[in-house]
């Protein structure tokens, strides 16, 4: 029964979404109908007639109420209503999964009565329909947050000439997006359909998704995409108003970082998950699902930088607007790409739900319209203040151009084989080697830039000044690079260059931090004051850059010095890998919650001292009749030890694959550092926003 409520709520979301799109749209607000119709409506909704008319008199209406939150009730009620409806829809779906209501085909397809509760909930996010409901919920949530953010502006904002239309446009665009997504959910893959005859039990969750991290990935992914929707809405709103300025940039700040962190978390989870599933064994594959996560993240990274430039100097308007539109476009297209069968047969779980045509049509209509608008408004996006070729602005611009080009390469690499096959041409695979060959030369200038760009001055800087500032970092990183390349002269150059560049970013970031902490005049107070003066923005940026350097170094090192041993082991046998020694203790048959597992036991020694015990498994899921292999991983200080077991070998032993990946721990630590950097920025932002005096976070 709850599912029917959910279904009805989904329908209402479409209607209310359109309602929000119309009620908040500038056309409606400016028309005379509004004054006759909205008057009573606002009274009904508990507010007084809104101060948002275009008439010259509205200033006098608004002035006395400056300190109160503006009368926004009618505009808050719609988003709140949509959020409640989205919660009802999600709750209806989750309830069906929790109680295993197999009369819903979506439940029968991906769940089973023996699936543990957590994974029944997780299974609700994996099929098309469930993912769409989650996406809707995320967009409804950010819709409310945006409404609150817009109607309680910060004191520090550049809101001199604010007539409220930015808010309405943005909410109107978000309402439209919600309606389109709701329609796509209902038409493409309605999750609330019922079957006349319910099967006795479901077909079970895909065992490869049965993992706690994997379940967490979906909420992060869709929260990130929802953040991109807000950025998109704000961009459109600025373009409509012909005021794409620092005020928009300031409003966007929270959303860019939020999306960046959420998408980054989803990517990190994805990487770790493929790494710990032995059958995949590596952490990046360049497959369609991964690329469709990477694309929006790359553009968001570019946007994080351009947005800062826009806020500071009001330059790069056009480019920032273009990125703001494109980030959602590639995110949306990626979602479509992973679930459409336009380009070939799909995985079986998705096969049933058809071709996601509405999602594609919605995508085409929404973005054709937005890019047309962008083109129309391009005259208003000129630069008010020119900057020199050697300046912070131009370095940020160059950096975002390279990031966007990298995204373009990834997009081309993903789509080209599909298009070629679709056109009936040759069957080709674009895999790791292609991306390495193209992306390595492209990232080199990006990473070089990353070292000194944070120290550049705005507007204008001098080469010799940069040289003086970067002297120490350049010398140190050159030493590192020369050392590794002479020491390992016979290895392939790409990872060595990677290590050198990681050294460059690390030393450059640290020396800049050092200079800011200790070279500054210390205001007669303690050095701790200097740390405070740096501000959360600088700290989170530095942390993210250092994180990238650490990750780069780890990835390069582990790819060069990886050791892999495949042996047929008997109980008691010991296997040497790097500084570690593994003693195989045999396999025991155990029962998991909904699987049986052959669990191998290894005792790990480092230089003859026991460190830990590792339990790689082969799990058998009887519902689907599928085996999965979980690796045993030890994150040691000198690298990861990755052990997995295979079948019984003919000589009576068991096939064991042991890999020692030096410095692999750095990759995970680097990812965590980057995300922490972003999280610091978000948290201080929220914290400062709710502080009474509202000091800007900088």
């Amino acid at each position, binding site marked *: 029964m709850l599912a029917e409520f959910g279904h009805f709520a989904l329908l209402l979301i479409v209607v209310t979404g359109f309602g929000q799109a119309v009620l908040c749209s500038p056309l409606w607000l400016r028309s005379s109908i509004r004054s006759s119709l909205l008057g009573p409506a606002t009274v009904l909704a508990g507010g007084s007639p809104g101060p948002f008319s275009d008439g010259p008199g509205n200033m006098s209406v608004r002035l006395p109420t400056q300190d109160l939150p503006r009368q926004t009730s009618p505009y808050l009620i719609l988003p709140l209503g949509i959020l409640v409806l989205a919660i009802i829809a999600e709750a209806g779906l989750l309830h069906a999964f929790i109680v295993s209501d197999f009369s819903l085909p979506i439940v029968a397809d991906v769940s089973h009565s023996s699936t543990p509760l957590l994974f029944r909930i997780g299974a609700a996010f994996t099929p098309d329909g469930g993912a769409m409901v989650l996406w809707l919920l995320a967009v409804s949530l950010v819709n409310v947050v945006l409404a609150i953010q817009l109607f309680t502006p910060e004191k520090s904002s550049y809101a001199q000439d604010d007539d409220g239309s930015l808010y309405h446009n943005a909410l109107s665009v978000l309402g439209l997006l919600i309606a389109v997504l709701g329609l796509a959910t209902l038409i493409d893959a309605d999750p609330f359909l019922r079957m006349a005859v319910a099967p006795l039990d479901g077909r079970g969750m*895909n065992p*490869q998704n049965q993992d706690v991290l994997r379940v967490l990935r979906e909420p992060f992914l869709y929260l990130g995409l929802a953040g991109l929707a807000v950025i998109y809405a704000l961009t459109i709103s600025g373009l409509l108003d012909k005021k794409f300025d620092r005020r928009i940039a300031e409003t966007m700040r929270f959303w860019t970082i939020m999306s960046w962190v959420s998408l980054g978390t989803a990517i990190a989870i994805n990487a770790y998950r493929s790494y710990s*599933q*032995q*059958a*995949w064994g590596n952490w990046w*594959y360049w*497959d369609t699902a991964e690329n469709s996560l990477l694309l929006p993240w790359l553009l968001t990274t570019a946007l994080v930088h351009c947005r800062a430039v826009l806020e500071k100097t009001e330059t790069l308007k056009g480019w920032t607007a273009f990125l703001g539109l494109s980030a959602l476009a590639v995110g949306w297209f990626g979602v479509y790409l992973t679930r459409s069968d336009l*380009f*070939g*047969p799909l*995985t*079986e*779980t998705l096969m049933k739900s058809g071709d996601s045509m509405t999602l594609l049509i919605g995508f085409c209509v929404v973005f054709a319209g937005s890019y047309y608008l962008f083109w129309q408004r391009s005259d208003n996006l*000129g*630069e008010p203040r*020119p*900057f020199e*070729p050697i300046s912070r602005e*131009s370095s940020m*611009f*160059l950096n975002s*151009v*390279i990031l966007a*080009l990298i995204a*373009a*390469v990834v997009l*081309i690499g993903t789509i*080209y084989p599909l298009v070629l*096959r679709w056109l009936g041409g*040759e*069957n*080709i*695979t*674009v*895999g790791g*080697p*292609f991306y*390495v*060959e*193209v992306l390595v*030369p*492209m990232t080199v200038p990006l990473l070089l830039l990353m070292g000194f760009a944070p120290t550049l001055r705005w507007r204008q800087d001098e080469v010799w000044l940069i040289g003086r500032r970067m002297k120490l970092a350049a010398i140190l990183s050159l030493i590192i690079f020369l050392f590794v390349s002479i020491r390992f002269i016979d290895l392939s150059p790409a990872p060595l260059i990677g290590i050198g560049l990681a050294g460059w970013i690390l030393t450059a970031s640290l020396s800049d931090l050092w200079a800011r902490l200790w070279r500054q005049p210390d205001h007669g107070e303690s050095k701790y004051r200097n740390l405070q003066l740096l501000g959360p923005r600088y700290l989170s940026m530095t942390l993210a850059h250092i994180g990238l350097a650490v990750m780069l170094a780890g990835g390069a090192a582990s790819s060069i010095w990886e050791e892999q041993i*495949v042996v*047929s082991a008997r109980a008691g046998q010991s296997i040497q890998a790097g500084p570690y020694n593994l003693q195989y203790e045999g396999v025991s048959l155990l029962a998991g919650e909904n699987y049986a597992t052959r669990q191998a036991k290894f005792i790990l020694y480092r230089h003859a001292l026991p460190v830990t015990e590792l339990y790689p498994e082969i799990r058998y899921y009887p519902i*689907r*009749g*599928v*085996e*999965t*292999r979980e690796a045993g991983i030890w994150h040691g200080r000198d690298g990861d030890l990755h052990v*997995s077991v*295979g*079948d019984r*070998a*003919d*000589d009576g*032993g068991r*096939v064991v*694959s042991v890999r020692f990946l030096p410095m692999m721990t750095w990759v995970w630590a680097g990812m965590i550092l980057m995300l922490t950097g972003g999280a610091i920025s978000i948290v201080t932002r929220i914290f400062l926003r709710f502080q009474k005096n509202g000091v800007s976070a900088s």
Partner: protein
Amino acid sequence: MSLSRAKARKRQRMYIIGAVLLAVAGAAALILTAFEDSVVFFFSPTEIVEKSPIDPDQRLRIGGLVVEGSVAKLEDGKTIAFVVTDMAQSVPIAYSGILPDLFREGQGVVAEGHMNGNGTFVASEVLAKHDENYMPPEVAESLKKSGHWEEIEQKNAEQMRN
């Protein structure tokens, strides 16, 4: 003042357009060269047999169904041999390492590697990621080409029903 400002703006636009064009051209050149030498071609067993002998240095992918009963371990205990077919032709494959979770006889598989001199495909990687009834698109394509797609579909549907 306004004139010099307009000049500066024009110059800036020139810089920006120049930099972007340079970057785009560089990326395009990189993509084209990479497409030339690091794209891996996919062949069905029939195509392999038709094109043989194939240069052992060329990296390629082969996809098809694993012939039932063909999987065997060689004497060294680590190398696995099996035969892949598109129902018209078949090619023997040798692979050392742990086979992926979803590798099973009668199921679709994609292997990457190279041909050795005696008509055996030496795989360096065997791919069968995704779930159990997943048919890699390339394999589906090659089965369609050899005209055996429907029977496999039917068989899979039957298995699903059981």
